[in-house]
């Protein structure tokens, strides 16, 4: 199940372990609160505070609870700048603290850690403010720092600057697969010896007067008024997804590095697969998804029967959930009747380019605790989605590997096989 003995071009591949996790999410900005909310079935979805939605069709979203991220930024002597960057910095700090690479007591020193981060939308807040200034005052009055504020790599650059991380520093942008592709790229860098330690994950924050209304109009958001019932992945009565903001950060490093510095190992990435549907800009393809799943299983050396549970992409849109369940069935065969499936978007909302990171962290927490969190709003499972959804109560799971799926507009698919810390 490990890639310890694999060889490539004569160079030994490294086992890649997770030594730190940080989360800034609608369920909270610390891991314990997030896990408690997940396991107790409390959603982070509610009426949107950030903007006036009265003229829009949908009024619900999953926002980070008011003031939490701001308080954390203040402790770093930072003021809110751009939501996606702010949430990324908060989660990155927790991941670095968790890994022991930084401490509250010691001054930061430059470290050869790479930052490979994902985002779907990028610096949405900065884009909106820059555009607003341009329309109100004219193009000659655009703020001078609009350029560095709006660039997609403002997020990875901001993390690198804040924590003095001197390895590679760039972003992966692939819509809802961004974080998974970023973590996958980071995993390959560590596995193949290009980096010893990488900070990776994804962030998105886009509740602004442009981006959110645009999503209202594309027709994939749930119009169900009750926020606790609005997002229903794989349910027969699902009506669409709900957007969310957040960031999740993981520290990946070689097993040797983690052991040599006595770091606590939180989990392991056993395999990664990625593919492109090449069929349609927004409609998913079961063939493309299944291809990525098989690649991840093959790399991990794990059969579908050895997967303990699946953390699905599960957007709660009709087309996506139907396609994903078909993909799972095509890869798992009859095993799909019994392997439990978790869909976290009924909690976090769809955090787009952050979703893969938040859901990977959820999957690792499930492995650590031996419990899969309940699915919300699954009272009426869709019989056409022929998979085995975890119900409204948490279920015990063993330490067998987890499959984590992410799929995005543009046809990009990314899949992990994740293992426990041992």
């Amino acid at each position: 199940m490990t890639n310890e003995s694999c060889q490539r071009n004569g160079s030994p591949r490294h086992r890649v372990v997770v030594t730190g996790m940080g989360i800034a999410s609608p369920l909270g900005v610390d891991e314990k609160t997030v896990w408690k909310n997940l396991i107790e079935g409390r959603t982070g979805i509610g009426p949107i505070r950030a903007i006036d939605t009265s003229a829009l069709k949908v009024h619900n979203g999953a926002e980070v609870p008011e003031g939490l991220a701001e308080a954390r930024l203040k402790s770093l002597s930072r003021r809110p700048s751009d939501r996606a960057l702010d949430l990324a910095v908060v989660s990155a700090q927790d991941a670095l603290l968790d890994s022991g690479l930084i401490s509250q007591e010691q001054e930061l020193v430059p470290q050869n850690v790479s930052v490979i981060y994902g985002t779907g939308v990028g610096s949405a807040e900065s884009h909106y403010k820059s555009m607003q200034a341009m329309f109100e005052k004219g193009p000659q009055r655009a703020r001078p720092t609009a350029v560095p504020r709006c660039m997609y790599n403002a997020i990875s650059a901001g993390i690198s600057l804040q924590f003095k991380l001197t390895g590679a520093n760039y972003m992966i942008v692939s819509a809802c697969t961004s974080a998974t592709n970023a973590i996958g790229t980071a995993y390959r860098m560590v596995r193949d010896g290009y980096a010893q330690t990488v900070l990776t994950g994804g962030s998105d924050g886009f509740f602004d007067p442009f981006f959110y209304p645009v999503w209202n109009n594309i027709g994939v958001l749930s119009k169900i008024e009750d926020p606790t019932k609005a997002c229903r992945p794989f349910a027969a009565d699902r009506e669409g997804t709900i957007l969310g903001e957040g960031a999740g950060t993981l520290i990946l490093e070689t097993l040797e590095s983690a052991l040599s510095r006595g770091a606590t190992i939180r989990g392991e990435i056993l395999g990664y697969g990625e593919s492109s549907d090449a069929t349609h800009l927004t409609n998913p393809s079961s063939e493309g998804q299944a291809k990525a799943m098989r690649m991840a299983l093959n790399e991990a050396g794990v059969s579908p029967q050895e997967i303990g549970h699946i953390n699905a992409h599960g957007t709660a849109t009709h087309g996506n959930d139907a396609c994903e369940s078909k993909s799972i069935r095509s890869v798992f065969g009859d095993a799909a009747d019994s392997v439990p499936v978790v869909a976290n978007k009924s909690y976090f909302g769809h955090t787009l380019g952050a979703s893969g990171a938040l859901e990977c962290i959820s999957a690792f927490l499930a492995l650590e605790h031996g419990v899969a969190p309940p699915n919300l709003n699954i009272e009426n499972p869709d019989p056409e989605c022929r998979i085995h959804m975890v119900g409204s109560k948490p279920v015990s799971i063993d330490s067998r590997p987890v499959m984590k799926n992410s799929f995005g507009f543009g046809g990009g698919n990314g899949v992990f096989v994740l293992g426990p810390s041992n």
Partner: protein
Amino acid sequence: MSDTSNEEKIIGQLRGILEESSTTEPDWDNFGRNSTIESLGLDSLTILDLLYDIEEEIGVHLEAKEVLNITTLGELVDLLIKNGA
């Protein structure tokens, strides 16, 4: 307006600008003429935003090269007064 009250007014305006646009959390308790540019979280890039906001709020245009060697808020205030603030 006396020199002192004009200076206090400009310092108040600068504080308002920085409260709105600064990306760091300056030491507001000791905010005044002796505050260093560095302690206000300003560097060669972010000072461009400050100049932008000064033009918007105070109506004085300063060139970036004019403020490159400034080290304290007091020097910036003096420069603004010299340019008609």
